Structures are given as structure tokens and as C-alpha cells.
């Protein structure tokens, strides 16, 4: 008997319009028109992704801040209502259990959004740690439809549907907005490097697929004048990698610390305590031996996860992600190398099926931030 794959509310849309693939236990669209076309739509105009497969949990109650301060290396108590933050769950060794986005919805109510593949692991981790606290922890993953509208024209697309001035929502903040007939939470976040929003449509259990389809059509109709494209997991991966963003299970895992991954600035060592603190303090003290780097090929080719990295003498690291950038037409990737090879500008070789190809360590994102990405000069 085959594996039972989960499906989002929008499975029928994916099946009729896209090529299906398996990802994190879900049967989801790899692409509709094509990875490159969808990738470029997001960089140049706007695209919409079904990201309902991601995990979403609410932590609410008297001790919610105390619990989250223990679970996360970033400070929580100084967040304003409707502010969001990128953070990690860490184990006692400082290894990354998952990366997530945290939103303070109300004084004592938080939304945590994390990777689809870690739905159970993360929920159980929060729940297990919450046992001695006065909090309610509940998984809303299957009751919320989540769409990401991304690209320089994302805001214009959504503004057509709302009376609220969406430009007032700052990057990494969120707000409740009415889009057409739907009340949604809109956060100015994403996984593409572009400006855009992630939209959370509450009260939509899995059997309410029609409501989810209406919500998606509303956005597709609004974006028609900008040639909006539905985008699949393929473009989601090339876009995030081009932006230099990590994918859990590849670039991050429980054996990798946020210091090695280059997120030292997202650790608040002033906090009295959080899970993993002592291990990270020790790492900061002694230094780490490997660092995450972004690498671009200097010759034509495609980088792939698992490719070994070499200096003149031997192996110095390995790629944890790799692809071909549809925007820049070069092979791009990220991975971990011995610290002494992690400086931007370091030349190294990548082994691609027995062939050594020249590459260079670069600063992410891979694209020119004056022309692409949310910091582009308009």
C-alpha cells in the first residue's frame, strides 16, 4: 500500500493546473507553467503560492511570554502587538529543531509559523515544554488557509481588494485586513526576498475547499493586470535560495547551530535563559569550525545538494542546497565550509559528478539588491 499523502484545501487546483510532487508528506504542485516562468514572475511582478502545508500553532495565555522566552533565543517580551520575528527552536546542544516566524497577535497571544515537515515535531516540542505553564497551545494548521503573494506588484494586487492602506504594514509586521469578502491576517513577510504578504484565512477547515478556492481566485483576478502567476514549490525553492534563505532539513538541522548558520545576531545572549543558551555561549566563546556560505559557480553548470567543496588540497565542505538561478543564469548554492574558507570572495572548487568546477563564496542575496528584492530602488 502506498504512503498516504496529505493535501491542502487547494489540492484540486494544483491537480488540474500543475504538475504534482511530494513534499513534506504533502501532494503539492511542483510547478504550473514552469519553474523559471514562475520564478521570474515573482522577481519582476507578482506570484501567489499556496503555503497552507506549513505548520501554524497558537500559544495563548498568562504564561505565553515566559514559555516563548524559554523556547526561543530571541527576545519576545519587547515585541509590540502585531510585530513579527524570525526565530529558531533549539535543543539543549544549541542545534536547530526548526526555524519559524513568530507573531504577537495580542498582548498574550502568539502565532508561530513553521515548516510543513516539522508540524508534529514542533507542536510536540512546544506542548511538552508547556506542561508547567498556564498557557493554551493549539495547532491551527488544518483550519487556516495560507497564501503567499510575493513580488514587487504584490502590494498593488492586494491593495485593490482592501480599503486599508497596506503600505502601513511594515516589513515583518502584520495586521487584520479585509480582502474582498474575506477577513485575513496579512503579514509583510515571505520566502522569496521580494516584498509581499503572507495571508492567513482563519476558520477554513479542510472540507471548506470551496472557500479556499474563492480566496485564491480573488487574488488571481486582482493580479491579472500584473500577469500574476500561481507558483509552485519549485519556484519557491529557487527564489528562497537566490535570496540566500535557508531550507530546514537541508541548510539547517538539529546538528547545526544558529552560530554556524550565520544567525548570531538573532541570538539574544542578554536573556536570562533559553533552551540551548549554555551550548551557544560556549560556541561563541570557543568559536565554531564551520560556517554557512553562499556559493556561485564561475563556469556554466548547476549546483546540487551534496556536492563537495574543495580547495587545492582536499575537501573543505559540502553544499546543502543547490540549483540554477533562472534570473542570473548561473549555478547557485549554499552549504557549510571550514571557517577559514568562509570569507566572501574565497575561490573554491565544487565537485559536480567527478568534475571540478570553479566557484566563489558570495554575500547573499545572489541578485543585485538595487534591482531586485524588497530593498530595490523603486
Amino acid at each position, binding site marked *: 500500500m502506498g504512503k498516504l499523502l496529505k493535501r491542502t484545501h487547494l489540492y484540486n487546483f494544483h491537480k488540474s493546473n500543475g504538475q504534482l510532487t511530494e513534499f513534506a508528506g504533502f501532494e503539492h504542485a511542483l510547478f504550473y507553467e*514552469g*519553474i*523559471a516562468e514562475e520564478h521570474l514572475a515573482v522577481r519582476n511582478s507578482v506570484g501567489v503560492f499556496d503555503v497552507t502545508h506549513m505548520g501554524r500553532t497558537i500559544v495563548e495565555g498568562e504564561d505565553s511570554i515566559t514559555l516563548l522566552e524559554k523556547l526561543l533565543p530571541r527576545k519576545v517580551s519587547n515585541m509590540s502587538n502585531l510585530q513579527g520575528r524570525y526565530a529558531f527552536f533549539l535543543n539543549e546542544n544549541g542545534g536547530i529543531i526548526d526555524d519559524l516566524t513568530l507573531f504577537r497577535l495580542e498582548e498574550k497571544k502568539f502565532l508561530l509559523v513553521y515548516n510543513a515537515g516539522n508540524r508534529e515535531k514542533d507542536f510536540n516540542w512546544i506542548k511538552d515544554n508547556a506542561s508547567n505553564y498556564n498557557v493554551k497551545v493549539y495547532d491551527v494548521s488544518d483550519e487556516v488557509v495560507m497564501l503567499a503573494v510575493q513580488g514587487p506588484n504584490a502590494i498593488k494586487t492586494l491593495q485593490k481588494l482592501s480599503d486599508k492602506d497596506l503600505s502601513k504594514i511594515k516589513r515583518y509586521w502584520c495586521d487584520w485586513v479585509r480582502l474582498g469578502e474575506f477577513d485575513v491576517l496579512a503579514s509583510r513577510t515571505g520566502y522569496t526576498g521580494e516584498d509581499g504578504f503572507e495571508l492567513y484565512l482563519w476558520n477554513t477547515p479542510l472540507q471548506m475547499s470551496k472557500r479556499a478556492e474563492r480566496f485564491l481566485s480573488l487574488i488571481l483576478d486582482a493580479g491579472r493586470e500584473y500577469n500574476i502567476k500561481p507558483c509552485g514549490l519549485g519556484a519557491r525553492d529557487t527564489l528562497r535560495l537566490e535570496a540566500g534563505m535557508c531550507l530546514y532539513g537541508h541548510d539547517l538541522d538539529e546538528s547545526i547551530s544558529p552560530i554556524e548558520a550565520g544567525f548570531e545576531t538573532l541570538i539574544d545572549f542578554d536573556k536570562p535563559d533559553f533552551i540551548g543558551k549554555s551550548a551557544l555561549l560556549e560556541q561563541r566563546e570557543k568559536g565554531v569550525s564551520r560556517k554557512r556560505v553562499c556559493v556561485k559557480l564561475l563556469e556554466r553548470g*548547476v549546483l546540487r545538494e551534496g556536492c563537495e567543496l574543495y580547495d587545492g588540497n582536499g575537501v573543505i565542505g559540502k553544499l546543502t542546497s543547490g540549483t540554477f538561478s*533562472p534570473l542570473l543564469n548561473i549555478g547557485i548554492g549554499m552549504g557549510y565550509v571550514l571557517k577559514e574558507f568562509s570569507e566572501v570572495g574565497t575561490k573554491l572548487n565544487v565537485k559536480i559528478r567527478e568534475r571540478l568546477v570553479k566557484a566563489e563564496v558570495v554575500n547573499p542575496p545572489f541578485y543585485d539588491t538595487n534591482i531586485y528584492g524588497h530593498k530595490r530602488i523603486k
Partner: protein
Amino acid sequence: MSQYIFPNHLKYTKEHEWVDLSQEVAVIGITEYAVKSLHDIVYVSLPEIGSNIKQFQVVATVESIKSVSEIYSPLSGTIVDVNKTLETNPEKINVSPYKEGWLFKIKPSNLDSEVKNLMSAEEYRRYIESLKK
């Protein structure tokens, strides 16, 4: 299946290569079915001219954004030419798999006995349909 074109004058393999035997040397490429399933071909690595290969040996790779596919030689023989244009313009395979997107040319060493291991256009079309279930 009607959306695919499989020219009648070509021979086909189960690995979705085509071979044109109407010229002095055999010309080899990948079928429109292979191109459509790979999607977004972005990189091609070609064999060395002069190398001797056996039938159904891996001789080249074609990469899309998401995957790497190995190309098997439909015939034994010597590589006499490769489509250098593909090294800089791999997308030629996407738009013209049977003409500008050819991969390499081979001087067959054992054509008469090996050709019976290849399929006609009609046989290949039936094979593709069987893959669809």
C-alpha cells in the same frame, strides 16, 4: 498523447532518445516527451569527440532546474560531433528537440545488429502511452 510529435523517420529508445539514421552518421537527441517531462532544461554536458561508446552506455547529461537526466547512446560507435551550441544555449532543446536541439553524432560500429533494439515512432508512441497507465 496527441500533443507530442514523434517524427516517423526516427528510431527511439526506452530512455527517450531519438536517432536519425538517414544521414551519413547517426544524429542523436532526446524526444519531445523527454523535454516536456524534464521542463526548463538549463544545462547540457556532452561527450568528447573521438570517444568510443557502447550501445546504451551513459554519454551525456541533461539538467533541468530540478533534476539531472542521463543520456544513453542508442548505438555503439565513435562520437564524431557534438552540438556545442547547447553549452551556451541549452534552451534550444526545449524549443527544437528534433532539429537545433540535437545532442551528438556517432559513427555506428555495429548498426545492423543494434538497430533491432530500437523502436519505430509507432512503437515508441505505444510505449509512452503504456507509461501513462
